[in-house]
């Protein structure tokens, strides 16, 4: 009933736009649904792009200074920032990936979601406010507050760029494949479209445009996912028990989807993944940057609460969506590769096909457009974080630290954005056929093993010195990268060796302790003059981090 209504609405909607003629004609001659789907999806996506370009134009007029570019002048409110943080978190990878995980293995998908969420209470209770009080634009501002600036800025910038690069490649490759499938666009064209739009948002609109693109997308994604989940539940008379019972009956795995399964075969592996997910969040540069876009510590804290609530709600929705796909997608031959049980386009398409199953073309088009928008918004945030590392940490604070004036820094950050955008397009094309499953996990592991230990210790542990931070931070980063290369996800899946040298998929359980241990060891044995200076600076830094005295506040208009 609802489906029929939505299809009718889709047809009416299509009729008022110019593409309608061809779309209806296609349907009339019995083409596959994909043809008309593309039209709806493309119209909605074009609408999103026009809206966000309009916002970029508006933001560009308000982005004049370096501060505007990096942190939107500190004018973002707690609720807006909470939505933007949630938007950064709800990437296409987590929307499509987690619902696919639930679709494939049921309960195990929830374990993943929980890992992504439990880091937030710790971030808000121990870190958010101190970061806001100490930093200005990037988290390197915080770690280099009392420690020697050059080595820590270089370390932070390198680990930022490494994290951003892996995250970007994962998003770009996902974007290309999704767009190819949903819109029928050529893969390379899709990469260029994403890259160019992201460069436009970031160079012209800076953090203000990047934040608003993220906020709009977060609302669209939350709204779309809510609608799919409600339509699934409506199918079962709003009785989740009936949904679960049907899923058990329909799934080839039956009762096994209701209990933790293969995902947790190795306890050490589970704990290691949990560590990376939990503490990686506290070290992701594009997330940390958002704490500097709000006016004060209070807004920083509120934004974490909003973000956590939205993210938690979103994961409950993906859980319902995954189960809905088990009952409504896997049982419909329209969505399967002929003669098999495999989904068209792979398991990652579970949520997308479910939108079609419960809402017809209109919802399918909407969700496809939202998935595309999601990728755009997330890559924009990542690119801004990467560009800031180049222009603020390397260029302005290391190469030109004796110079004042911020006009050249702004030019460098815009140039860095363009270069990063081009690099992202090239890497996206180069990695098209590669197995990229390890990349987001690796980004989290590096963030948890380099950025997080150095950040936490520099703020809370008086005895951390420059030497300790540099040795521990680099060793954490290198350990995470090397163990990932030796792990099954690269050593076996990418390099084609028979057996992995390092057995775990995620290295955090080793690389995090390595970072903390060497930060500690090389700090307590440090008797250099720099080390004395580092420790002497702690009290003043601590008082500022605790009270905000001397901290920069959002300038008022």
């Amino acid at each position, binding site marked *: 009933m609802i489906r029929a209504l939505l299809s009718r609405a889709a047809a009416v909607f299509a009729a008022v736009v110019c593409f309608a003629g061809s779309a209806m004609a296609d349907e009339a001659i019995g083409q596959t649904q994909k043809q008309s789907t593309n039209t709806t999806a493309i119209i909605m996506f074009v609408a999103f792009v026009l809206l966000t370009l309009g916002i970029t134009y508006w933001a560009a007029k308000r982005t004049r200074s370096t501060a505007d570019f990096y942190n939107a002048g500190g004018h973002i409110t707690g609720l807006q920032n909470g939505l933007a943080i949630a938007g950064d978190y709800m990437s296409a990878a987590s929307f499509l990936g987690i619902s696919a995980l639930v679709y494939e293995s049921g*309960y195990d998908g*929830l*374990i993943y*979601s*929980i890992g992504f*969420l*439990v880091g*937030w*209470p*710790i971030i*808000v*209770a*121990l870190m958010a*406010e101190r970061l806001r009080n100490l930093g200005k634009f990037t988290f390197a501002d915080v770690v280099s*507050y009392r420690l020697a*600036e050059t080595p820590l800025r270089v370390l932070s910038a390198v680990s930022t760029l490494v994290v951003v690069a892996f995250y970007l490649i994962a998003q770009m490759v996902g974007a290309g494949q999704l767009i190819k499938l949903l819109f029928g666009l050529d893969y390379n064209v899709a990469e260029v479209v994403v890259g160019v739009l992201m460069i436009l948002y970031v160079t012209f609109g800076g953090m203000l445009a990047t934040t608003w693109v993220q906020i709009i997308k977060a609302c669209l994604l939350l709204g779309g996912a809510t609608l799919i989940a409600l339509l699934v539940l409506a199918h079962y008379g709003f009785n989740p*028990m009936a949904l*679960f*019972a049907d899923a*058990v009956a329909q799934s080839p795995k039956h*009762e096994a989807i*209701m*209990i*933790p399964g293969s995902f*947790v075969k190795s*306890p050490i592996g*589970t*704990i290691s993944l*949990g560590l990376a997910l*939990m503490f990686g969040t506290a070290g992701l540069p594009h997330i940390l940057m958002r704490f500097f876009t709000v006016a004060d*510590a*209070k807004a920083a*804290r*509120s934004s*974490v*609460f909003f973000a*956590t*609530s939205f993210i*938690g709600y979103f*994961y*409950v929705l993906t859980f319902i969506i995954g189960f809905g796909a088990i009952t409504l997608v896997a049982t419909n031959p329209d969505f399967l590769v002929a003669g098999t049980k495999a989904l068209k386009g792979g398991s990652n398409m579970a949520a997308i096909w479910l939108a079609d199953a419960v809402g017809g073309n209109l919802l399918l088009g909407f969700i496809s457009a939202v998935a595309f928008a999601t990728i755009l918004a997330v890559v924009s945030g990542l690119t801004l974080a990467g560009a800031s590392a180049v222009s603020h940490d390397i260029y302005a604070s290391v190469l030109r630290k004796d110079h004042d004036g911020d006009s050249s820094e702004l030019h460098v950050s815009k140039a860095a954005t363009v270069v990063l955008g081009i690099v992202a397009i090239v890497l996206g094309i180069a990695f098209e056929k590669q197995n990229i499953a390890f990349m987001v996990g690796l980004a989290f592991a590096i963030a948890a093993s380099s950025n997080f230990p150095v950040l936490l210790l520099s703020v809370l542990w008086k005895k951390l010195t420059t030497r300790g931070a540099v040795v521990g931070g680099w060793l954490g980063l290198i350990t995470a990268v090397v163990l990932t290369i030796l792990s099954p996800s690269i050593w076996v899946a990418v390099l084609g060796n028979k057996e992995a040298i390092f057995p775990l998929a995620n290295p955090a359980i080793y690389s995090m302790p390595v970072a903390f241990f060497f930060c500690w060891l090389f700090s307590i044995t440090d008797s250099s003059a720099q080390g004395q200076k580092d420790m002497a*600076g702690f*009290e*003043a830094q601590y*008082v*500022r981090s*605790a*009270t*905000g*005295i*001397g901290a920069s506040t959002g300038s008022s208009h």
Partner: protein
Amino acid sequence: MHNNLSNELVRRVQADPNYIELETKRNSFGWSLSILMLVIYYGYVLMLAFAKPFLGTIVSGVVTLAFPIGMFVLLSAIVITGIYVNRANSEFDALTRKVVEANR
């Protein structure tokens, strides 16, 4: 490079009774909640690793005990964040304001 606080100001703030109260309360509250979250989460992970049959106990229909427990962990992350933010935005911020006003 940074407009560092003067030593004199730092000592004055550190001696301020409001600052001492703020630090004691906030630190113990922040660490307690962080440890609570760690205990809940790693308790859950250990159950996944070592108590799978228990988690597989049927609660109702086809739904196992793993569902309410998982939802509890998920909700606890939101609730703990909310509890901290609520107290920090009222009580701790009021104390911070007093410290800042007294040490301009």
